[in-house]
């Protein structure tokens, strides 16, 4: 087991009280696994990714711990986390491709980044060049400014930089979102290639686009309003989901081959609850077609079949 997250609960502190963005998340990642993390905006998926590597105010750790390989990550201590960041655990934040220093050449910027982590740039340069080949970028990009690269190229460059030290865990937050379909496919496939070549051990891919996850992920975890709803193998989640939210979410996806006059897809009525004072129990309750009185309690996240976890009273009721 490469990553183990136990009861992780993270709130955002605001003047009006705590925003309960991540509640009691428990899951694991095995070696070499790519786990997709999907959900609507505001469901806490980015909070989860970020709290694993950079937990700073207004984020607040309420409880829980994170174990990466054998080490308990000091996620609540920004200073101590510095030893792990980038080397053991690395993140590609959302819009990272626009966060490259515009007035530094890319090679120079990488060099400075590595120096801040006390890594010798010269020694790693051959590997850097090999990685550039891997993502089909010419080596000249190191002498270019970020503005000279297209969106897809920048995204691939960011992937190379963040995985340069072979982190045990890579968190990729919405890396395909702002790209065209062709670049999207290329970037997603390169991520798999990185894993295959051991540039990173395992990866969490955060996205709102489930169809991308179907292409590249081994397992998918679905979140709703700060709670984990369901986790299972990609095939299980897509073909035989059990949680009502997952079922509805997947049925709303338009696909090539479905037209409005032949098969009218329906959205999920209602809106996600505000997380400032979320309703007690299952947070999907108000929009759920099968909710019953038991749903006023928080459903436990239970393994109903091997590697298939679900938090729903309706599905787990009998043995809970």
């Amino acid at each position, binding site marked *: 087991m490469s990553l183990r997250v136990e009861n992780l609960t993270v709130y955002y502190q605001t003047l009006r009280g705590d925003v309960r963005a991540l509640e009691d998340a428990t899951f694991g990642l095995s070696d070499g696994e790519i786990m997709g993390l999907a959900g*609507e905006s505001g469901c806490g998926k980015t909070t989860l990714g970020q709290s694993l590597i950079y937990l700073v105010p207004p984020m607040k750790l309420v409880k829980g711990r994170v174990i990466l390989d054998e080490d308990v990550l000091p996620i609540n201590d920004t200073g101590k986390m510095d030893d792990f960041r980038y080397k053991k655990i690395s993140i590609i934040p959302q819009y990272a491709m626009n966060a490259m220093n515009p007035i530094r050449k890319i090679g120079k910027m990488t060099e400075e980044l590595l120096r801040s982590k006390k890594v010798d740039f010269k020694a790693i340069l051959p590997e850097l060049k090999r990685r550039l080949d891997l993502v089909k970028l010419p080596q000249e990009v190191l002498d270019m400014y970020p503005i000279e690269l297209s969106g897809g190229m920048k995204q691939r460059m960011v992937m190379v930089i963040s995985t340069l030290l072979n982190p045990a865990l890579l968190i990729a937050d919405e890396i395909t979102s702002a790209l065209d379909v*062709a670049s*999207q496919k290329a970037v997603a*496939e390169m991520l798999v290639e990185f894993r295959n070549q051991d540039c990173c051990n395992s990866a969490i891919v955060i996205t709102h686009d489930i*169809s991308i996850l179907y*292409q590249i992920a081994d397992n998918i975890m679905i979140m709703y309003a700060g709670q984990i709803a369901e986790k299972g193998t990609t095939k299980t989640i897509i073909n035989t989901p059990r949680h009502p939210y997952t079922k509805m979410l997947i049925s709303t996806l338009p696909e090539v*081959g479905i037209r409005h006059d032949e098969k009218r897809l329906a*959205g999920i009525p209602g*809106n996600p609850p505000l997380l400032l004072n979320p309703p007690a129990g299952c947070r999907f309750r108000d929009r759920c077609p099968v909710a019953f009185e038991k749903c006023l309690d928080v459903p436990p996240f239970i393994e109903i079949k091997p590697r298939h976890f679900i938090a729903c009273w309706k599905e787990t009721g009998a043995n809970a």
Partner: protein
Amino acid sequence: MLRLDHVSKIYKVGTFGGKELHAVNDISFDVNVGEVMSLIGESGSGKSTIGKMILRLISVSAGTLSFDSIDVSTLKGGALKEYYRNVQGVFQDPFSSYNPIFKADRIFSIIREEFFPEVDGEEWTQKVHKSLESVGLNPEHVLNKFPHQLSGGQLQRFLIARALLLDTKFLVADEIISMLDASTRIDVLNLLADLKARGLSILFITHDLSLGYYISDKSLILYRGCITESGSTQKIYKKPYHPYTKMLMASVPRLDRKWEKMEIDLKGEHSTSPVGCSYFARCQLVGKDESCMESNPTLIEVEPDHFVACSKL
């Protein structure tokens, strides 16, 4: 109803504007009453430029763009206002379409001041309520609120309701659902389908092929400002002919089958010469040769209502 006849948009680029960039290159199509036309393409394909030209936000460099047989670029004053009564646009980011200082329903009172000063208060409120209900919103829940108090889907439907107040006949929908969540985007898409059934024509600009397929009757695939393939949506999706369309179709992530292994060439320069096939640099077609660059490929009808611009067919 709306007709584009050999429309081009040329930007001057480079030092002193010495070079020309053909953002839209010699495009012709028309949209009829109650028809949904998708413009599909990657970023830089000129799809938004076409939308902006229709809304007269930017000028047309060459060719004519006409609405109900009147050249749009000649409209001035009252006639232009009348044009905006018929043709309206909704854009990608609903949050930046509003002024955050004012309440969101200010967009309705502006419409009233500009277009309906004679309608009295009570009647106007009725009208607003009716149009909000027709886009699936409960007026009591959404009126009198600031933009940040409403969700993206609600704001986007507000903008569509605003267009409906004017009895719009033609809607330019530029990536209107790409910023919405999966659970709400299908509602907005269904709303467009309902409006189409009531006779509204829609130009649906998107980079998402599955959304285009869901809603549109006709499609236009654009690459670097040129049409590569056009015609009936079902025919194009069922049997794409152009190598670019084929590559796009193969790259769409689907839930029923995995990606096939295929080399995608991501390079390809923006051609500054208006002559020759714009897709040449990235084309994976086996038979491609120099002759592709000698002339512009013309649209050939490969089957009824299905046109392809590739000289190697």
